């Protein structure tokens, strides 16, 4: 069990009291003990212990990058927090998981990036629908905040702004 301490949420650094359950070697999703309090559990644990966890309001779920939003089926709306793990910076599946959760499954709760979450990836993460960032512990979270404002406009639509630039503004013509 780890707690994340502070996270970036809605563009500011806030204290965070959710803890993150990661399966240790030998842990089985069906039998691992889910502690009391606000806990983000792996998707596999949620699916295996769904009946037992269903009544708890303080449960969130997190996706590994190789897991599918579809596996959550209609449960997305039950959570106030869903997290997506980035096992390494170069594993970009989390961006599509977020896109699908937000635009296909209508998830409106907190969407948190966990794992290798660094300043220079935050802008894209924010665009696809993340609104909370558990910045890697060894990094200065206040510095990371700057990453959210690298660009003031974008060409293409995404979760944050569905309209591409050409539909949102009067673009110039050749001079």
């Amino acid at each position, binding site marked *: 069990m780890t707690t994340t301490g502070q996270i970036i949420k809605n563009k500011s650094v806030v204290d965070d009291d959710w803890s993150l359950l990661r399966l240790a070697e030998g842990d089985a999703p069906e039998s691992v003990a889910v502690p009391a309090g606000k806990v983000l559990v792996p998707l596999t644990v949620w699916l295996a212990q769904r009946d037992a966890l269903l009544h708890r309001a303080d449960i969130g779920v997190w996706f590994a990058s190789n897991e*599918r939003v579809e596996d959550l089926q209609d449960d997305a709306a039950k959570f106030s927090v869903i997290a997506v793990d980035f096992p390494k*910076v*170069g*594993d*970009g*599946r989390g*961006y*599509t998981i977020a*896109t699908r959760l937000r*635009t*296909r499954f209508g998830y409106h709760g907190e969407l948190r990036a966990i794992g290798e979450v*660094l300043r*220079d990836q935050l*802008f*894209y*993460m924010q*665009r*696809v629908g993340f609104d909370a960032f558990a910045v890697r512990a060894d990094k200065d979270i206040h510095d990371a905040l700057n990453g959210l404002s*690298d*660009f*003031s*406009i*974008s*060409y*293409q*639509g*995404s979760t944050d702004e*569905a*309209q*591409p*630039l*050409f*539909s949102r*503004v009067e*673009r*110039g*013509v*050749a*001079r």
Partner: protein
Amino acid sequence: MYRYDNFDHRIAAERVAQFRDQVRRRLSGELKEDEFRVLRLQNGLYMQIHAYMMRIAVPYGLISARQLRKLANIARKYDRNFGHFTTRQNIQFNWVKLQDAPDILADLAAVEMHANQTSGNCIRNTTTDEFAGVAPDEIVDPRPYAEILRQWSTFHPEFAYLPRKFKFSITGATTDRAAIEVNDVGLQVVRNAQGEIGFRVLVGGGLGRTPVIGTEIAAFIPWQHILTYAESIVRVFNEYGRRDNLYKARIKILVKAIGIDEFRRQVEADWKFTKDGPGTITQSELNRVSACFTAPDYEKLPENDAVVAALLQSNKSFANWHQRNVSAHKVPGYAAVTFSCKRTGVAPGDISAEQMEAAADLADRYSFGELRVTHMQNLVLADVKQADLLALWEAAKANGLATPNIGLLTDIICCPGGDYCTLANARSITLAKAIAERFDDIDYLQDIGDLDLNISGCVNACSHHHVAHIGILGVDKSGEEWYQVTIGGNKGSPASVGKIIGRSFSFAQIPNVIERLLQVYARERDEGERFIDTVRRTGIEPFVEFVYATPVAVDEKLLLPDYEAQGKGLPYAVSLYSPRF
């Protein structure tokens, strides 16, 4: 060509500021190399043997004279006076210092250029036909769509960390000069029975370690929907493309693994959420972008220029150049001219700052101030009056840009190879030089005719050796450089993957191997038949038989100390043949 509006300028400026800060943090140690690597790659910076290499985007190969002058300036200021054109119609500088990179990006932004996504596992520069807009066989000018694709893919937040790089290519002509069959996504602009414009979409083509010809996923996607459709393709790839093995991560492996029908089903299942949504291209956006690609002010001229016709009879060297370096134009009295960057003794695709400036001046004078970088690593002036051809030829000659070898054996596509690249098993540039020297006889080259010869220094196939008529691949055998030879590849209309002729050869044998292949061709060819056509007709067997019939001699000259000194593994302090050293 496309011109930035205030929004493009703002995005470019914000990119420069972002990278400047990232470089600052790298130099201060705040960012570790493994964190910085993905950031620098998406700004075109590779670490090579001697220095950083910076790859600058030339979107769909189109460049203005002003931009080319800026590149000349960059070559002088930050490099060793040279640039190198690439097969994705970009340009590379090989001697860049990290601390200079942000300033280079700022210089580029001033002339509406960038190095965005020229490397990394993201959507790369879209390539197209170097004769787009002027080719007589063109149905629709692909450039507005290429620009729309550029903007859509630039900093696409969902697709910056794909399983592997991702390449689009687009053609609007009946002859495919954009190699759409060997790109991750190939787009062919077509008209349907109602005359509406759309795209035939190919997916899963690619070269590298596993060459695959793309498969049609859709026969007709109306142009309005091409971004949402492309987005669904890339999204499915992002989710399901393999990430456990670098060599199996391209979309071609995914499409092969699940089959085109299942892949199409997944794409369409995703597309139904976005089709007709906000990503649909509007007529007004297409109009706005298309307005940048209108025809220049052509004069009304006769179909053929009489002076040129006379010169073709009286001046053999002009006629040689005209035959190879001048292409047909859809407008009467005009022609497209290719400047060869394949002079014997110069690394294929290399261009000096002085040549860039000369080419820019000639484009201003003779071709409405625009040029195109070709995937063959040459430069095109697309709108030249035939009446100006003689003057242009003289000027190009004076600047070393008029080698009459376009499409011939010495128009070699070549990667940096072992002389520069950390991935290479063998030297490419040096071998290209040896080949060019051996066959440096224009009459012989003309007699052999159309022949694509490509040299890749390793299996990553940057020089597309699989789709060359003669492909040469550097391989490593117990730390020594050897070369495997394929024949029968073709880059398009239709594309085919070459077949390996047999066991590999040493560096010094290769010119003789090529000579033997050409002897078989000369013996077997029918009247007017190109090398590739002969190979297709006879199969590779007669070639294999002759090449391996007796031991292939080494070219003694290539064993002399000055050639030997260029061997991989020897200190690079020795003077290599490239003028850059």
